[in-house]
């Protein structure tokens, strides 16, 4: 089943086509989410939400554009949503700690510590820089394609990518100097 047939099948609501789409692009979406968020459980949730949104909104997809870019745009936005949600919850829980709350019920009151990012160095980058670096290194996208995913101009995408490459290289060099010196 090629890409166009899979899309047609998904538009018709065919579960086999939807499964084929998840199997064809699942690893790609999961890796982007994992690199942007840095937490496997959240990345899997983002992956699930991305495909559900794709199935719901596939009729809006413009076939003149690359399907992969469209899919990555949704995955990137859902990853940002997840990061915002985590940030809001963190701020909320910190406030709640100082202003005693009514006792909560159900589940573990102490959320598990987030898993480390694939590399601690990536924590030094903003989510947009991490996304730009991932799309450039893993997917070989150009600045123009990255700009479509990040919803910015191509020159801004180049700046994100440049800053990401520069920051990580400097950190690697510092770590190397510390190890040898």
């Amino acid at each position, binding site marked *: 089943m090629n890409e166009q047939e899979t899309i047609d099948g998904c538009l018709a609501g065919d579960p086999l086509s939807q499964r084929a789409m998840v199997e064809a692009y699942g690893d790609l979406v999961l890796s982007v989410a994992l*690199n942007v968020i840095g937490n496997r459980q959240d990345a899997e949730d983002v992956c699930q939400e991305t495909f559900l949104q794709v199935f719901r909104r596939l*009729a*809006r997809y413009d076939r003149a554009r690359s399907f992969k870019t469209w899919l990555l745009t949704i995955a990137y936005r859902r990853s940002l949503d997840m990061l915002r949600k985590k940030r809001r919850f963190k701020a909320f829980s910190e406030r709640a700690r100082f202003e005693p709350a009514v006792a*909560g019920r159900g*589940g573990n009151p102490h959320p598990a510590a987030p898993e480390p990012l694939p590399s601690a160095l990536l924590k030094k980058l903003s989510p947009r820089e991490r996304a730009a670096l991932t799309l450039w290194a893993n997917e070989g996208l150009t600045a123009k394609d990255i700009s479509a995913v990040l919803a910015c101009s191509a020159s801004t995408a180049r700046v994100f990518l*440049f800053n990401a*490459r520069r920051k990580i290289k400097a950190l690697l060099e510092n770590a190397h100097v510390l190890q040898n010196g």
Partner: protein
Amino acid sequence: MFCRTADLLHAALPLRPFRDWLIRSHMEGCPRCQARLLSREEARGLLVAPDRAGDARGLWPRIAAERERSGRVPETPRAAGAAWRAVAVSALALVIAVTGLWVLRETETPAAAAPDRFEISYVNVGGAPAQTFVYQPQGSDSVFVWAQKTP
């Protein structure tokens, strides 16, 4: 422009438009600055590649179950003018709701007021008991409930 000057300016003026201009005007075209950037191979070594992300096929049962729950029918693109119709219907509904509330308020007796008590038995997210936090700021009548999946 020398690389050192560019570096100093880049560090000294943290204004994005200026940094963007600096990168475009010098650093992108300078071989020495380019040599101080992470290569694609180095970046791949730090990132999770799609073939190392794990088996995404295992996500299909979750996605299929959620799809069943939320309904199979995909959205169709809205016809032109649909947005305006939606706005008009929402505005009408708002007017009716406000009028209804005003009429009810006029006829409500004090005894009919709801008791000042908030109760929540349990919260399920994704079919499982969720972590639930009930929060009431001191001196406020507002109650916030935050629920998230149990890890």
